[in-house]
């Protein structure tokens, strides 16, 4: 669908607010630009900043859906600005910053604080009993396990899933889709020595997988198309089978 319908005059309504400025109040500001062929929101926002308002704040780095910096609400849907083509959108494009995360200013949010807290709460690292020996040969891992871990590790921590999650929007304690994905990733890793009781305590929790109410938006909007619903089903079944052991 993305393509070359570059005859439109695009109207942008962009959320503006600078929390650092005591005189700033949250409001929407309108901009108009001409649509260009194969225009992404990244290109459009740069044009607005260059030609209309240099104070507009937004984040971009890689421009290819790898860094996860450019998550924003595009007409109410969490999306990556770099991979959203204006040709896929109507003429009126409404942009807001991602909810849940700390607002830096305008469309820019600090996802790092949330993800660091999540990583600490879910202890998202390999728990090994023995000290790491850099000279030793690594243990082998079967292909299927490695593939599953890789699937989960494709998460770029853009925060779109968190912004789309009804529970994460109202509860700061909930691990959120990305957090649950991290738990699943490490629970599958044979190098992680946490036992069933450790995982049960972490997963089977109102802030863990049982905090999820099954709205499924996270799965549907994930820009990397991670199989998040399968991840939650895996965690639910893991909690149940652990309790039945």
């Amino acid at each position, binding site marked *: 669908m993305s393509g070359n319908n570059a005859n439109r005059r695009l109207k942008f309504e962009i959320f503006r607010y600078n929390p650092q400025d005591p005189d700033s109040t949250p409001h929407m500001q309108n901009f108009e630009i001409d649509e260009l062929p194969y225009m992404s929101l990244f290109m459009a926002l740069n044009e607005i900043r260059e030609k209309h308002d240099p104070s507009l704040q937004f984040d971009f780095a890689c421009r290819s859906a790898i860094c996860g910096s450019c998550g924003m*609400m595009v*007409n*109410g*849907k969490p999306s990556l600005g770099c991979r959203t083509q204006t040709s896929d959108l109507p003429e009126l494009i409404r942009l807001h910053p991602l909810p849940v995360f700390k607002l830096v200013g305008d469309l820019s949010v600090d996802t790092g604080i949330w993800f660091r807290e999540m990583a600490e709460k879910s202890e998202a690292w390999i728990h090994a009993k023995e000290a790491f020996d850099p000279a030793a040969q690594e243990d082998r891992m079967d292909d299927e396990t490695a593939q599953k871990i890789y699937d989960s590790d494709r998460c770029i921590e853009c925060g779109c899933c968190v912004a*789309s999650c*009804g529970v994460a*929007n*109202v*509860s700061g304690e909930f691990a959120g889709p990305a957090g649950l994905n991290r738990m699943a990733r490490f629970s599958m890793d044979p190098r992680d020595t*946490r036992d069933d*009781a*450790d995982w*049960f*305590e972490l*997963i*089977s*929790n*109102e802030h*863990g997988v*049982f905090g*999820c*109410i*099954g*709205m*499924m*938006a996270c799965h*549907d*909007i994930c820009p990397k198309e991670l199989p998040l*619903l*399968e991840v*939650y*089903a*895996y965690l*639910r*079944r893991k*909690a*149940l089978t652990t*309790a039945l052991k």
Partner: protein
Amino acid sequence: MKTTGAIDTAKRQLVYEVISGGTGLILALFMWGHMMFVGSILIGTFGFDWLALQLEIYFIAQPTVVVIFSLFLVHAALAARKIPAQLEERRKMIRLGRDLKSQAHEESLLWIWQVRTGMIVLVLGSFHLVLLGIDVLTPLFGERVGIESVTSLARVQAGLWLPYAVLLICVEFHASIGLYRLAVKWGVFSSLGRKTLRRIESFILWLFLGLGAVILLVLAGVIPPPLAFLATGGAA
């Protein structure tokens, strides 16, 4: 890690989740059976009264009313723990659901409607269950202890058709979307894919809505029992 309190909490959360999902599953399956029982009115009052009597003389109806009412209340209490307590939190969720609905994602808004229909079912379903409990366990209404077509038809025709129509829509919506969500949550039938599961959910919803609507129209006396020709031994 592995503190006794935390493990107890984890076990409790698992039990809550399993019971809320399990009671929902049982209640949804019961509603299918319930539709078959009430559907006996499609044969006529003879079919309805005969089936009601069988369920009562073999003591199936009496414990069923008590057990279903208990499961109903347990399900309501445990499922309600997921509803945000603050009005502003609920508004936030509704806004999110509406925005995502406009972007071709329906399930978030469907969850909100599941809560809304659940609230209506809690009120109207409680009323219905109390009424049926009185019918099954006491001689207060009708000529004997038990469900009687004369009483049921008189009630519906006196105006209960309206709350029953609302209850029918809410129950069928709540149950079908609940089954779909339960299957996705636990990964049951995941090999079918979500699209197929949604189609099955829609089929179940419209099938039981249609069947329920016909039954209600018969109970309200708007249309005659369409399967009356099947009743060979009694008056339709």
